[in-house]
């Protein structure tokens, strides 16, 4: 394996990690506020569909982005209605949202476009284009760092850079702002927050709004990357992001590394259909299952214990 191949694999890892990272951060905000979000998968799918549909009709991915965020937000608010306002089971609500997205995107997609649940393919302004960072062409000729700069760092879409920026931003919001402090508190000890005169309900809804926007970005990215929406295109990414979130122990910087790792696994799996170790060939299915296997091992606490926010999964009932 030569240097350029490694660079290319890393480049594709970054590409594949982008939606995971955005979704993972979405889950981070929601779970840090005490709302477990199994429904990430559904939000991702709903956003991808609406983004794909809007971009196909209008020819602009930016309008697609708005539609994707709107769809994801609607799902987020439904989750809030069920699990915050009506104090329902957050897990059940999330599961319902995932099925709702899986069903509605196909039923509506077929009704709108008659393509068996796909949207028409996107081209030109209907997709995000890669950004060539300054001097990318000129630097490409420099050995070692040139190709790395040209292939790996330059040439990604707006959303990839946005996702990377979202990491320090999330860190700052969560750990350096008053809002973040309250958000984390509401996930650990909501009654304390309530006693301080701050609305638990409002904070949790705010967290779900952030989660909805981030999932909207991630879904739009998927639609743009694949040049259109395809049935079930989120393909478990919402769950992988959830896994990455646990792997990252609900921390923004760790979330970056975790999603990059899962992106790398996917990139390697895509590039090498089977990997031979001497006489033994690792089957492609093993590579596909690896993120899930890793998550189970991490969950089992063999690689350091992952402790979720204490109040996550519980709806807050005011004392009377």
């Amino acid at each position, binding site marked *: 394996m030569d240097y350029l191949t490694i660079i290319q694999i890393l480049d594709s890892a970054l590409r594949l990690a982008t939606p995971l990272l955005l979704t993972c951060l979405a889950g981070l905000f929601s779970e840090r506020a005490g709302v477990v979000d199994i429904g990430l998968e559904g939000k991702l799918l709903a956003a991808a569909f609406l983004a794909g549909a809007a971009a196909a009709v209008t020819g602009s991915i930016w309008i697609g982005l708005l539609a994707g965020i709107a769809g994801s937000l609607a799902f987020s608010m439904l989750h809030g209605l069920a699990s915050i306002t009506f104090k329902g089971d957050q897990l059940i609500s999330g599961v319902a949202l995932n099925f709702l997205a899986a069903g509605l995107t196909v*039923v509506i997609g077929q009704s709108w476009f008659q393509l068996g649940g796909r949207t028409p393919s996107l081209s030109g302004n209907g997709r995000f284009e890669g950004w060539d960072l300054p001097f990318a062409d000129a630097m490409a000729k420099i050995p070692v760092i040139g190709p790395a700069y040209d292939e790996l760092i330059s040439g990604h879409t707006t959303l990839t850079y946005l996702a990377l920026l979202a990491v320090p931003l999330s860190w700052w919001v969560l750990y350096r702002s008053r809002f973040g402090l309250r958000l984390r508190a509401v996930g650990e000890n909501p009654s304390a927050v309530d006693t301080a005169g701050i609305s638990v309900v409002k904070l949790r809804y705010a967290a779900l709004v952030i989660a909805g926007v981030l999932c909207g970005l991630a879904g739009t990215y998927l639609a743009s990357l694949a040049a259109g929406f395809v049935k079930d295109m989120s393909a478990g990414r919402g769950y992988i992001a959830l896994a990455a979130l646990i792997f990252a122990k609900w921390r923004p910087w760790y979330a970056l590394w975790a999603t990059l790792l899962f992106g790398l696994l996917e990139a390697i799996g895509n590039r090498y259909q089977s990997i031979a170790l001497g006489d033994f060939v690792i089957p492609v299915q093993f590579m596909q299952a690896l993120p899930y296997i890793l998550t189970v091992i991490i969950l089992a606490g063999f690689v350091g214990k992952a402790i979720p926010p204490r109040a996550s999964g519980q709806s807050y009932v005011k004392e009377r």
Partner: protein
Amino acid sequence: MNKMPKWADAVLIPLISILLAFFFSGLVIWAIGKDPVVAIKTMVQGAFGSTSGISYTLYYATNFIFTGLAVAVAYHARLFNIGGEGQAMLGGLGVTLVCLAVPWPHWTLALPAAMIGGALFGAAWAFIPAWLQAKRGSHIVITTIMFNYIGAALLGYLLTKVLKVPGSMLTESARFPEGAHLPNFSEILAPFGINFSPNAPANMAFFVALLCTFLFWILIWKTRLGYEIRAYGQSETAAKYAGINPSRIVIIAMLISGGLAGLMAINNVMGEAERLIDNAVEGAGFIGIAVALMGRNHPIGILLAALLFGFLYQGGAELSFWESIPRELVVVIQALVIMFTGALDNMVRMPLEKLFVALGKNKKKEA
């Protein structure tokens, strides 16, 4: 505490929730420019209009009884088993291995053996998440989701590399021997002089499902183990003080749950396909969640909910054929049922409770 009469809690609330779910499903049909009334007629005609339709309805219902019971057993212990899909997949593997291992002379011998195979493999697939939950505190919802994906990958590998018939283009196992064929409804009913569609899939497994429903009721409400499971589900601390070992209950409840999900394979793999095919479970594991929620984790409720979803599944297939509404409409209905009967339960319950409290006050005044 008794704000509501028991019948309202057991019947009225689920009924209103389901009506709400159906109302919104109708809204979806209307929104895509189709007529909900025509859609319902098509579905009823397709599911009950012919013996073939009835057979498919019962066949799907059989799957959902198994997976619904599976979710319900775990739920009585306050464990949310989303892994029914994977457990049913592995159950299919167990049934396949048993059916292909011996040239079975007669189904009466093959069925019990296949049941053991399916239940064992399903239970084994539930064991790891159960053990991790009991001993390491890993959240069962996440681990069972992960095990669905791991199971799908494992089966994908086995089907393409191990079980596939050499030289065949199809990713499926060899056909089961003739002796492992389960009688279908046409063969069962023929001696009684009843004509039933000969090629439709409902089979002997339906009666096994009914038996399991009855055994479920005995287990949960008439045995010591069932009592312990329910006690643990109601309050872990109280159960601990009563001398119930939490790890033991978690693991046993999940083993039974996985076993029931695995048993589904005697219907779809042994009864219908008679070989292991790719994606044999077709989402039945997930529908079990809706069935259990709708049926309030009670065997009679689960039976009725499974029949309803059997109807929706078969009717949905007809809908896509005649009305060109995609089959995924059933997934939408399933989602709405889970949403309204599960997560939005309080939305229906709170106003009803107020209503009953108000009614109760009036009565007292009159007296």
